[in-house]
């Protein structure tokens, strides 16, 4: 890796200030992605500000404000702790399942919640510096567009980038309408709805998110909901553990009798961001929770898919996965 300075931050304010001052500085938390990327010469920060000592680990109920009754996950909390916390398991089992579907036990023990949101694509052309990649080096072209793209996007890609976003946790957060709490150098704290946090590649694929340089994710807020008994995270992958999603679906339903009052569906492994399946959701609201309606919803969502050379299977797989995830959700996690 390239030479860099290393600072161990003792408080959030000075850490953010240090970051904001240097456009090539990066926060270091779990390091499970950043260090790999530095070893491969993909990320080249000139300064690392280690924020692991900051006190941002708590998982706690939100007692005031618009999200009262929800919970807040500290930005520096470990993925493992979030997945196993009683509040998460009881009220947001979808989130717990999604986290446990990601990475491996060892990585989840190190990886933080905020860091998870900011992990970078696993596109092999992004990782190999000898290859063209607009995300890594704007203007060099997209190696995957006409290359090996079995793992790549079917929604929302551009000619500049066909990469997919890798996190499982963020897919669940997208279905659960989470908010990302960030703090800037002037001490201001604000809430970015998860739907606005991520972006499509367009002609600026180097930007994964809408988070400006110089801000710190302090927490993730989950609003109260009625999905806990009818949700499911389905991850389809090439092996049972430690593999990124071919397609994943976070599905959550609120029903009255057999009528769907609210539906939340988000997909992973299909786009540059967690893909909220709004068309499918709209199809379902007010309808009976039946296999036929699930299929209609899946058809509606997947009709817009635009597969690449090697990933046409994701359209059929995505369709089936939406249906299966909804069925699993209705049945409380059972087929």
């Amino acid at each position, binding site marked *: *890796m*390239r*030479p860099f300075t290393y600072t161990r931050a003792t408080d959030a304010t000075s850490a953010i200030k240090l970051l904001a001052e240097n456009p090539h500085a990066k926060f270091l938390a779990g390091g499970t992605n950043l260090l790999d990327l530095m*070893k*491969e*010469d993909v990320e080249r920060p000139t300064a690392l500000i280690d924020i692991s000592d900051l006190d941002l680990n708590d998982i706690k109920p939100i007692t005031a404000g618009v999200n009262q009754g929800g919970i807040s996950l500290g930005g520096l909390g470990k993925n493992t702790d979030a997945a196993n916390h009683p509040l998460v398991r009881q009220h947001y089992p979808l989130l717990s399942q999604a986290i446990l579907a990601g990475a*491996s036990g060892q990585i989840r023990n190190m990886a933080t919640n905020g860091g998870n949101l900011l992990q970078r694509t*696993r596109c*092999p*052309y992004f*990782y*190999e510096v*000898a*290859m063209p990649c607009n995300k890594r080096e704007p203007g060099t072209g997209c*190696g995957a567009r*006409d*290359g*090996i793209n*079995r793992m790549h996007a079917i929604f929302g890609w551009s000619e500049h980038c066909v990469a997919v976003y890798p996190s499982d946790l963020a897919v669940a957060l997208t279905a659960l309408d989470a908010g990302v709490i960030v703090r800037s150098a002037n001490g201001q704290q604000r809430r970015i709805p998860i739907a606005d946090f991520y972006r499509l590649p367009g002609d600026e694929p180097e930007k994964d998110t809408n988070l400006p340089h110089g801000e710190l994710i302090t927490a993730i807020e989950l609003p109260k909901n009625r999905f806990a008994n009818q949700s499911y995270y*389905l991850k*389809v*992958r*090439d*092996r*049972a*553990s*430690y*593999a*990124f999603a*071919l397609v994943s679906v976070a599905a959550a339903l609120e029903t009255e009798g057999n009528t769907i009052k609210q539906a939340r569906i988000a997909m992973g492994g299909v786009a540059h961001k967690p893909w909220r399946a709004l068309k499918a959701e709209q199809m379902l609201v007010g309808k009976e929770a039946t296999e036929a309606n699930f299929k209609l919803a899946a058809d509606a969502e997947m009709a817009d898919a635009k597969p690449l050379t090697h990933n046409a*299977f994701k359209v*059929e*797989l995505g369709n*089936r*996965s939406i*249906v*299966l995830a909804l069925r699993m959700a209705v049945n409380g996690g059972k*087929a």
Partner: protein
Amino acid sequence: MKEVTKVTGTPINRIDGIAKVTGKAPYSMDHPVKNPAYAILFKSTVAAGKIQAIDMTAAEKAPGVIAIITHQNAPKLNVKGGLRGGALLQSPEIEFFGQHIGIVVAETFEQARYASRLIQVTYDKKEPKVDFEKLAGQARLPKDKEKADARRGDVQTALRQATYKVEEVYETPIEHHHPMEPHATIAEWNGDHVTLYNSAQIVNGAQTATAATLNLKPEQVRIVSPYIGGGFGSKGGQWANLALAAVAAKHVNRPVKLALTRQQMVNSVGMRQHNRQKISLAATADGKLTALAHETTTHCAINDEFVEPCGDCSKVMYDTPNSLITYRVVPMNLILPTYTRGPGKSTGSFALESAMDELAYKLKMDPIAFRIKNEPDRDPSNGKPWSSRATVQCLQEGAKAFGWENRKSEPRQNQQGNYWIGYGVAAGTYPAHQRPTSALVKLKRTGDHVAATVELAAADLGTGTYTILTQTAADALGLPIQNVKVNIGDSSLPPAAGAVGSVGAASYANAVNDACVKLTQELVVKSGKQFFVRPTAAQLMRSEKITDYQTRVDSKPPESAEAYSAHSFNANFAEVAVHQSTGMIRVNRFLAVTGAGTILNPKTARSQIIGGNVWGIGMALTEESVVDPRWGNFVTRSLADYHVPTHLDIGHLDAIFINEKDEHVNTLGVKGIGEVGIVAVAAAVANAVFNATGKRIRELPITPDKVL
């Protein structure tokens, strides 16, 4: 006289187990040397062409850099010295993406790697030959005489006349060995002698090839390799990195550590090539094979040839009057392929045993009955009798143990929840050979205590060589195992065969046994006495009051073995569950039944078989190295992209050994188990997937998208 209980054949724990799990067993990079420098290789970013210029200005000024070595200043090496894959910095020519083009040596690994990234290389690029789909049509007959067309009878006529036949093409992708311990070397010169700490499956082979490459005599090179963190063929023949470590150490005049990164492994130390195999089978209505053709098309390096013997199983597995085995190969701008676990047999058996399953289905025969019907009573390829052959026993005992009678003969008849359940079977083989090996046995007596040291340049891949040799020597000398010390993995010891091609156990154990028998005989002669019951060497040391005695033997396979065809045989059984919506596959149960002659240690043997099974399951379901057909780079460069099975992918594994006494193969009757564990695994899984879903997948790996 007390009856001695033999320890050979009992499941004692691994002798080196505690050293390994406590981190005390030194692997290549762990050996202490004084003041090492660190080297990193830097690599070509084009697949074909010529280096035009190398700008090292920035790299030379980078902190900690001691030297940069490229083809412009590398010493003249012998490129035909026996190291595999070229890339010895002898010319500006580029033959594949990721070819070594230089070495940076620095005070630390990080400094070396950083400096290597400051180097700017310009190339005269050529259009690379890297797209197998486009090039397969240009494949030609291999130069290797072993791969000449082998024809018996008239396959074409038999196929034309048959009612029941299968003619299909089976594809297996490029795979990489990816041992946990990447290839790594410490090179330390002492005058004009160099010691190389480097894990090697063939210790003496590494020595002679490196010496020849460096233009040295073999005795000037010492290979130290007490432990190997996996090799699977990639540490059989050695590669440029070994000689380049010595070059770097010489250049900077201090010890050098050179380790490949995981990403560099994909184009530094060989691979299993993509094989396109056409199988043609014909049979009579009652299931007697009338023709078997196995035609393989593959690729090799642009200037060097290696072709996996995919047709080997097809030569010996079944009795058929008409047989055809062919190979065609096309040179490509990719690294030289090499031996990879179960070379030819693991891939070849996927094609053959899938086709056998397809034909059994067409014949409406049970696939086990179909195989037994075509069991040959002697080796069809050369007419020799079998030294022993347990195929039928493996199939029958396996069927019983696995509950084969619960298999539905038609697909999609066995449903559990959202899953289709399927059973599959496949049979396989791997040849058994003993190779010349020398061994030295030293006895030392202190009072009544007799201790033995056994020395030979053998290799332990982690498979149990230390353990089985301790057991063999203990029994042959009449000592408890704790009084036996085994020293291996050092080219200064008596020369030995490699731990390759399933020859290790047979070669090493027979040599050690021969040495111990010879030593005992010599002690008897020395005593000048006649014995009614021959005493052990340990007893003789005591009774004759000898304090030190040693003997050495140069052991060879018995000439009588030549008259027989000697192979290990197996039958594998798989139960898979295939998710009806997502196509995700899980191997619920896997059973391997093996007939491999004498099993020296059932515990290490079982581990070796189930290890082979796990790789075979990976071959069936997950493993694939993918080349970008435009540029020739591998896009699967890490263990996050190249999927080996995880714990969660593997259900219940079981291994059974047939109680088999082979009196012809060698003195101890050992046939070897290293390779056969992966043979016919992928086919058993693929056949189970067909039985579950009705989908016949002829292209590995069987990922969810293929079964949707």
